[in-house]
């Protein structure tokens, strides 16, 4: 396959960036998108140019590290996959592909296609956990009965890998699907109920402080989420938040 890549290049966080065009040839349809970028970077290095910086880690679709806004969609045109699991067979010979970083005020660009998603970490630190007694008296989690439906829903919410595709794709750069998944994951289980009130208030407060936009229920996040996190979680978070606010 012969392709034209239009890639966002930006030297550092403070520099102005711009789209730079790179022609690329001999791309196999079975290559992953990141392997295609590896080939481009090899060529750039051979020419003595600066390679394109992009995030990646496990390349198995589970770590949430790879990002990229490809041809106007988070993680590209395929559904239910991260960029590392996106294959070049999704494109045609002769295509022009726009490759941009995830865009949001709360996800500032560090370099080229690499963005700082530590705002997600700070939201997690604000309440995305349960406090466990580790003094040796810990009760086996399996001794507490959990409704099967709740266990399934909690597990589905826990599938969120925190990649930020929801923010990147949302026209408002809202992080509600991410925060809702984290809130739901614990709120549905007895172990998480104990701190549920503080958790939702603190996580939403941190989310707002980070400068994410407001959710307007377009549903784009659910469609683009590589892990299929449902909008149902946002409705649950709204309920949790309003009832926590009234309690508090």
């Amino acid at each position: 396959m012969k392709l034209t890549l239009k890639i966002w290049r930006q030297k550092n966080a403070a520099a102005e960036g711009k789209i730079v065009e790179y022609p690329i040839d001999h791309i196999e349809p079975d290559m992953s998108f990141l392997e295609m970028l590896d080939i481009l970077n090899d060529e750039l290095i051979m020419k003595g140019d600066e390679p394109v910086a992009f995030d990646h880690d496990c390349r198995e679709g589970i770590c949430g590290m790879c990002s990229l806004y490809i041809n106007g969609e988070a993680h590209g045109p395929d559904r239910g996959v991260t960029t590392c699991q996106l294959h070049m067979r999704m494109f045609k010979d002769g295509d022009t592909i726009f490759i941009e970083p995830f865009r949001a005020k709360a996800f500032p660009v560090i370099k080229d296609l690499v963005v700082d998603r530590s705002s997600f970490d700070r939201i997690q630190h604000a309440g995305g956990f349960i406090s466990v007694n580790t003094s040796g008296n810990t009760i086996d989690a399996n001794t507490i009965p959990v409704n099967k439906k709740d266990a399934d829903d909690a597990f589905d919410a826990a599938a969120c890998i925190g990649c930020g595709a929801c923010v990147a794709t949302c026209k408002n750069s809202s992080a509600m699907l991410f925060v809702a998944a984290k809130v739901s994951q614990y709120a549905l289980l007895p172990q998480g109920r104990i701190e549920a009130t503080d958790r939702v208030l603190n996580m939403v407060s941190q989310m707002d402080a980070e400068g994410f936009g407001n959710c307007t229920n377009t549903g784009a996040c659910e469609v683009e989420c590589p892990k299929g996190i449902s909008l149902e979680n946002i409705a649950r978070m709204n309920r949790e938040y309003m009832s926590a606010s009234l309690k508090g």
Partner: protein
Amino acid sequence: MAKSALLKSSIAKKVAMALSGLFLMLFLAQHFFINMTSVFSENTFNSISHFMGNNPLVQFVIQPILIVGVVFHFIMGIVLDFKNRAARPIAYAKNNGAANSSWASRNMIITGLVVLAFIILHFYDFWVPEMVYKYVEVNSLDETRYFHEMTAKFESPVRTGLYCLSFVLLALHLWHGFSSSFQSVGARRVSLGTQKFGYAFAIIIPFGFIFIALFHHFNH
């Protein structure tokens, strides 16, 4: 939690938008049913309009609540839109919004502003003259004037055309707004039934208003 923090929170604003939207949809439905009577009976339309225009509860309790609801919904919508735009200072060079969301859901501010412009025109056409008639000129009660006042406004093809266009945009606003409000207030599951009812509401009510406008335009 401090009350000020609650009012500032993104979720509280979203819930407030949804509740005011649901309230306005209720108002819209009752306005539609009253207008629809004008197609069948001039007298029924006149007597309901007279009741709505002179009942103290409607005039001095419900009407101010409605005006506050309208103003709140629009101001909050505009404020949130500015905030949301600020959350992405650099736009994408290529964005394919149609791949994952409906046009109506992405353009609520556009459809909303058209509806706002229409409401201003509607106030200028009906509400302001009504207030002048009743409270400035203090005219005597006339139960028979409402039908003719309304049909007179639908004589102009330009005004009738603008009226119809506004309602098409309102239909798009409701297409997303109905089920979205249920999602925002945390409805346990925005079921297929709710969504279908929302789509039906978004078509029947605005296009019903359009039918009424065209009916009077071509019959009077």
